[in-house]
């Protein structure tokens, strides 16, 4: 990777963030700088993907100068609307200096640095990058459009034609802005996504608990999740999905407090980011909506946010369906839902569960035991609202593995750790919210 290639991609990412910052001026009135920076990153990436897709849809080759002009117009347009007045009244007071918080923040920063170096040390190489995300991104980048054959060509039957397109579109638009497809420099996208995830977790925890220690602990736990932040995931949707899930989870937890009307915008953005990253993200958004509807938070705000979490993935899925036509997955055999095969499905469900417990959980049993023990001994926290969502998501993963068109054990071994770990950053919100609050703060509200 040449310094020029790296600097062009970093400049494109900086422009993406600046555009997102302008677009989210009204979305984050009560947030600190860390959280605002993360939401700006998410909005910027969604904007780049949408701009590229819009150019392609009207037959305009999305050259760098068109994209630059689009970004400029978005920034100028955003500044015509007055920014939301900053409000800090509902945030918890933040505790003073804490050496543990500084240490944990240093751990998080060091772990992030490790992933940064590992991710950009060589061109992205994982099988899923070559076969799915990178192949689609490079094709879209070079074609300057969304070639229909990505969705219908039988020769690409293995490329998961049904997957959503946020990651390929982001890679293509960043490459266009950077002036070339450099599959080593483009790897910077993924450590930056991790950085935004860490900033979001730390900023949210600090705002809601008032505890620097809880904020740094949650961020450090996330950064130390090397199973997720590993070079094999550079170039795939998992890191983007983890970011989207944290965006949606924080919006969901905020909805229980009805902090500001900006929350609806954040919920829309988060739900769209989740659904655009991967189908698991759409499922996560729907589950957030369902849990909000049946939880005891009866505020009208919660119900509206629930509606957003339910509707946005549906609208996104419908739009994809209209634009590209039907695209079925080769991974699942839905015939198992037929009454005559329910017994088979039950047997498969049992073997998937057994495989998860005896192999996958056994591999990470120390971490799993620590999480369970902490949940048992700690007091309930405001993040517990996410537990039913995480459990339900795990249940649906188990069902999905049971429907595998191949051996369910093979499906578990090849995909379970990867997709399960995308939920871990959300889990750190649950864990961080259960840490004892610093004296004199109203943590847990």
């Amino acid at each position: 990777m040449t310094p020029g290639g790296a600097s062009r991609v970093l400049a494109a990412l900086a422009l993406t963030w600046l555009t997102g910052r302008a677009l989210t001026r009204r979305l984050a009135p009560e947030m600190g700088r860390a959280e605002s920076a993360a939401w700006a990153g998410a909005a910027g990436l969604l904007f780049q993907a949408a701009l590229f897709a819009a150019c392609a849809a009207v037959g305009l080759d999305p050259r760098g100068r068109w994209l630059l002009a689009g970004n400029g117009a978005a920034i100028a347009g955003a500044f015509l609307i007055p920014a939301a007045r900053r409000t800090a009244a509902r945030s918890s007071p933040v505790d003073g200096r804490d050496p543990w918080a500084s240490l944990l923040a240093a751990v998080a920063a060091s772990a992030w640095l490790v992933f940064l170096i590992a991710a950009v040390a060589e061109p992205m190489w994982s099988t899923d990058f070559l076969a799915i995300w990178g192949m689609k991104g490079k094709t879209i980048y070079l074609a300057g459009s969304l070639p229909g054959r990505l969705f219908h060509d039988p020769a690409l039957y293995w490329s998961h034609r049904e997957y959503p397109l946020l990651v390929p579109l982001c890679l293509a638009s960043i490459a266009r802005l950077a002036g070339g497809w450099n599959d080593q420099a483009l790897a910077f996208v993924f450590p930056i996504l991790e950085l935004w995830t860490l900033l979001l977790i730390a900023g949210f925890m600090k705002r809601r608990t008032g505890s620097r220690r809880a904020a740094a602990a949650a961020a450090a736990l996330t950064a130390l999740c090397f199973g997720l932040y590993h070079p094999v995931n550079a170039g795939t949707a998992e890191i983007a999905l983890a970011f989207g899930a944290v965006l949606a989870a924080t919006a969901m937890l905020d909805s229980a407090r009805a902090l500001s009307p900006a929350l609806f915008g954040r919920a829309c953005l988060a739900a769209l980011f989740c659904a655009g990253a991967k189908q698991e993200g759409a499922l996560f958004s729907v589950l957030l909506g369902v849990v909000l509807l049946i939880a005891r938070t009866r505020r009208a705000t919660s119900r509206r946010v629930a509606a957003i979490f339910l509707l946005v993935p549906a609208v996104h899925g419908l739009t994809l369906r209209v634009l590209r036509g039907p695209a079925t997955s080769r991974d699942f055999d839905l015939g198992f839902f037929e009454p005559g095969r329910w017994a088979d499905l039950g047997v498969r469900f049992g073997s998937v569960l057994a495989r998860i417990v005896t192999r996958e959980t056994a591999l990470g049993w120390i971490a799993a035991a620590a999480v369970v023990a902490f949940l048992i001994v700690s007091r309930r926290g405001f993040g517990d609202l996410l537990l039913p969502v995480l459990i339900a998501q795990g249940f649906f993963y188990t069902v999905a593995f049971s429907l595998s068109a191949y051996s369910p054990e093979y499906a578990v071994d090849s995909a379970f750790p990867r997709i399960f770990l995308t939920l871990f950053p959300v889990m750190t919100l649950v864990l961080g919210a259960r840490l004892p609050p610093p004296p004199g703060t109203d943590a847990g509200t």
Partner: protein
Amino acid sequence: MALLVPPRPDVYRYQAVYFLAPRRVLDLERISEAQFVAIYGGAGGSAPGAETLPNGSLSRR
């Protein structure tokens, strides 16, 4: 372009499709739709008149 590579591991095919994007890369079953045929190593012999490349050959159909 039709591509003849060993069926396992899959990454032979994925890597070729990625590097040749946005070209359409086909497997042996769809060789009739291809303008060129690339053969990796000894995966399928080599066609008459094929150009020899490092680790394989390339021919026009």
